[in-house]
């Protein structure tokens, strides 16, 4: 496995998709290596699902190319699809089958050899916590269990690339934790693409993040890169004897000052300026009683809101 950890499992270049005159996905490029988990974010209607449908061959792109484990998806769809497991937004379940029959059918459709099938089905069922309901009809299960059946279907053929469209929707907090653990386990030796609206989920499981907005990539980097996105441009300052409000804002390079209570100030800096030195010097000279100076870690939520609302204002 170690030899293949740098192998690229999915590479999509300049994906474009139009529906009539409306461009839903506009030049999305992404690349993922084995062992990486990619979080796919964006407001509703940003083109996440459309992109995933293109990556899984459910929708042909208007332009662009997709390579799955070195196989061109558009040239050799069957060979490429053999490497993919896909859970769409609505799990594709046959309600009249039992859980065991359904996962077995998924294994057959993905050409799992006869001798390995039973083991593969058993493994998928147990890793999704479905072993004890395998004889129940899919249609009688609760939403959370149905979601798990959908995930079992996506991993039964041990694909190199697992694509999950909002896998934790409709699950209770315990189930969400189980699914997250499952995704982390999958991410060890495969690639996972995960779309979600739950931003802390991305922080807790993903290695990389792509944020889409109006069909365009507005952010693509690692989680660490995301946390440094502001480049230390927000600092929380604690002052025991704060000066008048205008004084802090007047320091060159400070763009905005917010107050969280009496003594803690949240300073946003201009894009390239770093007025920390000036701030500390003034604090000492004028005895503001500086007791805290913390560069803020940016949460996914902040970046998300900033990137997807900035455009809205511009548009």
């Amino acid at each position: 496995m170690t030899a293949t950890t740098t192998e690229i499992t999915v590479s999509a270049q300049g994906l474009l998709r139009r529906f009539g005159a409306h461009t839903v996905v506009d030049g999305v490029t992404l690349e993922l290596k084995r062992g990486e988990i990619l979080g796919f974010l964006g407001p509703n209607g940003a083109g996440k699902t459309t992109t995933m449908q293109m990556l899984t061959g459910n929708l042909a792109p208007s332009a662009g190319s997709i390579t799955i484990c070195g196989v061109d998806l558009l040239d050799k769809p069957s060979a490429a699809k053999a490497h993919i497991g896909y859970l769409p937004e609505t799990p594709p379940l046959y309600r009249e089958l039992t859980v065991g029959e359904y996962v077995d059918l998924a294994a057959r459709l993905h050409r799992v050899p006869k001798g390995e099938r039973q083991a593969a089905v058993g493994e998928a069922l147990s890793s999704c916590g479905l072993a004890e309901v395998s004889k129940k009809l899919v249609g009688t299960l609760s939403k959370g269990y149905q979601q798990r059946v959908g995930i079992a279907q996506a991993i039964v053929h041990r694909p190199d690339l697992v694509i999950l469209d909002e896998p934790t929707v409709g699950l209770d907090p315990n189930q969400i934790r189980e699914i997250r653990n499952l995704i982390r386990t999958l991410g060890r030796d495969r690639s996972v693409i995960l779309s979600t609206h739950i931003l802390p989920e991305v922080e807790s499981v993903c290695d990389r993040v792509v944020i889409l907005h109006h069909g365009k990539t507005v952010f693509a980097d690692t989680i660490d890169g995301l946390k440094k996105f502001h480049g230390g441009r927000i600092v929380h300052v604690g002052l025991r004897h704060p000066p008048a409000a205008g004084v802090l804002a007047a320091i060159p390079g400070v763009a905005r000052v917010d107050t969280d209570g009496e003594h803690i100030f949240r300073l946003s800096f201009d894009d390239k300026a770093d007025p920390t030195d000036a701030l500390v010097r003034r604090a000492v000279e004028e005895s503001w009683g500086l007791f805290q100076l913390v560069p803020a870690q940016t949460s996914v939520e902040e970046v998300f809101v900033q990137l997807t609302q900035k455009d809205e204002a511009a548009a």
Partner: protein
Amino acid sequence: MIITIAGKELKALFSSPLAWIVLTLLQLILSFGFLKRLDDFMQIQPQLMQAPNPPGVTELVVVPVYATCAVIMLFAVPLLAMRLIAEERRNQTMVLLISAPLSMTEIILGKFAGLMVFLLLIVGITTLMPLALLAGGSLDFGLLASVIGGVALLAACFAAVALYASCLTAQPISAAIIAFSLLLGMLLTGETASDGLRERGWTVPAALAQVLSPLKNFESFAKGTLDSYSIACMVMLTVVFLILSIRRLDAARLG
């Protein structure tokens, strides 16, 4: 892979009440007709014996059973086939098949094969009735084989057209209505057009119009004359609609 999909379709058919209702009604109607005709045949048999070269029990009793079976299929196949693609679309389960390493051709052929197995089962249980006559006499096995082959080909034509109709929509009921309209329209126009054109001496257009009318092609099988052109017409119709279905699925992906 085609077998996997066909098996899944059969399982789905038998887990819905529709298949059982169709089988029951079919059996009721056919056995009633069969017994009535057999009764009539027994009554007129003494007169028939006096005629030179009289028609036998196969012609008078068995062939009409298959003709009834053909007419029932005209109504039953649109209902049996409506779910094939339309319901997968409506329940959004089509994604499972399309995401799997399968070609559109395999998906369509699998669905077609599943439906055909069911329709051949109908033909099979219909055949049990004439076979019961062997207890008290003999049959014209040549004619019997010809009419069974004809009904099977007819079923294939109906199934392909109804499968195509199911590819056109995401509503099973609409699919059934489209299939029934298509079949009925084809039968009517094909039959009248081919007769009308032949009367005017336009043999080539008449021959083409005959392709559209599977019931007309079935008639030659019912007479026991194996007409290779009729066979070709029915095979052609089936293949054309299967290809149209495959193209329809591809078109949905291209959007």
